[in-house]
């Protein structure tokens, strides 16, 4: 089958994010960027399918600035056969991303779209679901195990109450959770080979999609600093303090 994986360029998970002084967002200057870790898990899943013979072709796609090519090259080094780069310098919100992915899905007709359950930059956790809805396809989110069987996939999902196993018809959208696998270390020869693999670049307009900004960020602020605790002598004092604060 043909597998499409969407990956996003995000701030590296090791970076300690700093909010800009004017509250207009977080500071990304000179900050290390990487592939979204949940998307790496989706990549690993796709490559394992290729290794196992379940997938014939793996296509990596990303939506982002010119520099996002680095993440596509990583995806190609992972083992994707080719890549699609939808270039934009604008901030892409989940609905626009979903529209773009839906369009690419219709064009490429993969059996499955794999993507991380969320991106660690804004943690929206929406793109996979919206894409499935736009395409009117089944969705299986938060996958921690996937089994393919003909035109169906059995997906174990991580839900609040524990694990849930569902079956979806293919084609489908599957979003990946942490326990699905452990992404491999990239091999240096594969990094070299990735340079020669094709990347098909296009703009958002090329796909006939208008970037819709539906959400406005009014302010970004760091979490408030925690106040130091207070030692109390006994339970009575504790209760009265809690009453003072209106907590009981």
């Amino acid at each position, binding site marked *: 089958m043909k597998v499409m994986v969407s990956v996003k360029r995000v701030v590296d998970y090791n970076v300690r994010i700093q909010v800009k002084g004017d509250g207009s967002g977080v500071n990304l200057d000179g900050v290390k960027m*990487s592939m979204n870790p949940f998307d790496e898990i989706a990549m690993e899943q796709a490559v394992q399918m290729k290794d196992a013979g379940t997938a014939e072709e793996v296509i990596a796609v990303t939506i982002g600035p010119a520099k996002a*090519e680095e993440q596509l090259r*990583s995806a190609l080094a992972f083992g994707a056969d080719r890549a699609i780069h939808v270039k934009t310098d604008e901030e892409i919100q989940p609905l626009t991303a979903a529209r773009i992915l839906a369009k690419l899905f219709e064009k490429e007709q993969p059996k499955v779209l794999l993507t991380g359950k969320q991106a660690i930059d804004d943690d929206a956790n929406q793109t996979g679901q919206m894409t499935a809805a736009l395409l009117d396809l089944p969705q299986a989110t938060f996958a921690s195990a996937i089994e393919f069987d003909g035109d169906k996939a059995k997906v174990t999902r991580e839900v609040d109450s524990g694990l849930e196993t569902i079956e979806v018809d293919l084609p489908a959208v599957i979003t990946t959770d942490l326990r699905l696998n452990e992404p491999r*270390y990239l*091999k240096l020869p594969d990094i*070299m080979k990735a340079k020669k693999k094709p990347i098909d670049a296009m703009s958002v307009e090329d796909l006939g999609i208008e970037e819709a900004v539906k959400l406005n960020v009014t302010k970004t602020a760091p979490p408030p600093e925690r106040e130091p605790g207070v030692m109390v002598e006994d339970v009575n004092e504790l209760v009265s303090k809690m009453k003072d604060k209106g907590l009981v």
Partner: protein
Amino acid sequence: MSLLINPRDLNFLLYDLLEVESFCDWSAFGEHDRATFEAVIDAAYRLAEDGFAGHAARLDANEPTFDGERVHIIPEVAEALAAYIDSGFMGTAFPAEYGGLQMPYTVSQAIASLFTAANIGTAGYPFLTTAAANLLRVVGSEAQKQRYMVPMIEGRFFGTMCLSEPQAGSSLGDIRTRAAPQDDGSYRIVGNKMWISAGEHELSENIVHMVLARIDGASAGTRGISLFVVPKVRVNEDGSLGPGNDIRLAGLNHKMGYRGTVNTVLNFGDNGACEGFLVGEPGRGLAGMFHMMNEARIAVGMGASVLGYSGYLHSLAYARERPQGRPPGQADPESRPVPIIEHADVRRMLLTQKAYVEGALSLCLYCATLVDRLEHGPDVDDRRRLRDLLDILTPIAKAWPSEYGLKANDLGIQVLGGYGYTREYPLERLYRDNRLNPIHEGTNGIQAIDLLGRKVTMNQGRALQVLLREIRGTADRAAADTRIEDHARALGAAVDTVEQVTEALREAADEPARYLANASLYLDLLGRVVIAWMWLRQVQAAQRLDQTTEADFVAGKRQACQFFFRRELPAIEPLAALLIEHDDSALAMQARWF
């Protein structure tokens, strides 16, 4: 944030300071581009942080043991090395024709430094292997390359360097291991070797020992020494493994640091059945080794720099988070304690570390670029200048970082206070690991003698002139920039001082003992000037960056440069005074007076 090397800084050093990207225009590296280098270094960060750093403390606490039969090493080492080999790191700098990736030496050193910073104990095994393989690449025959080097690049065989013996460490001219010629062209090796890192283990199918020995009848001293390849297990012509090769592990050395890399005493040919093969020409063993010496010494300096660097980052992270004490003048005991980085003296210790380790790392990487330019650079006419620079800078690049990287670790411990003195934090381990670097690959005392006794005097002092001309060139260019003109002037004056000191020392050139008595002071002096030069170059490069978006990074470089120029460079003056007057405090001291 990485605790190995600041990724922004490494990137800055490689591309903004040293312009490594331009190497891709050379035919040797035409296959590569900057994006590939960045991706490969990224992959190294990842494996170093996820696969190496995690077991560094455990490996240190559980060093390899020998039960009389076998060497036991905790299993994480084999797992990490399997990932390292599988990812292709063993062959980064080797030619493509031998299965390598043919990356610049500079990039391969940057990669190696990440594994060093993460876990030197585990990283020691592949480093020794690449060193042994590299030696074969330079002086081995094609058959030897195929039989021993290629399996090392593939990670199937590991390697060692067998130079020292119990009675001959720094003085290799005194080694006694013998090689008896056999009718089939091979040699029977008999002797004992000391301090052999990675000398025995079960991490690889075979171990390839590069052994210095004397062919029967060879002259005494260094000219009688030849180089041999001696495998732990014999290798058949078709590459398959044959019987054992009569190499016995006599025991382990128990070290202060660097504990994960097993260090051995090896007996070769106890039963007269140890087969070795001559590498290169008879009597040219040390020449072959010395060919690799520049690179090996730069690698030691690099390791010392990054062990210091990692300690700096650990202590920086701690200082940002540890609340303790209040600002001077704040008398209210109810007020919040501040993170210790708010205390000026803690910032002094952090800034000292930054100035040492970033300065030292830039020097080692600069030397690595000289290796690349010499070996692959397009400008053939420039090679003499490059060779001179590399020759004179090598002892400095080995000794200065290994002395000051260690000082950085010392300060890192101090930043953490009591916690720095415990094994719960990595600072004390980094210090112990780093303590080897002033000792091995030629002690710092030997580097000083190499610098003053050989490098400064050879070719009528040409190499020193070339270096000083480079430094003066930087100073002259910087003099036109009002932001750094003070530093430029100070650097120019420092070059004058080096010239005066060197001239004054020449008066004692006929008395070697007197001439060399204060060689260590001379190395420290010239080292400070060279690091100041590197700092000025770093600031020049930083000023070309985007001054708005990278304001903090640039300001940090400026401040560290200023720190070095104000607090470290002036220390050359008292050194110069001692050197100029041929101070004989140590020379005149008699052994019986102690």
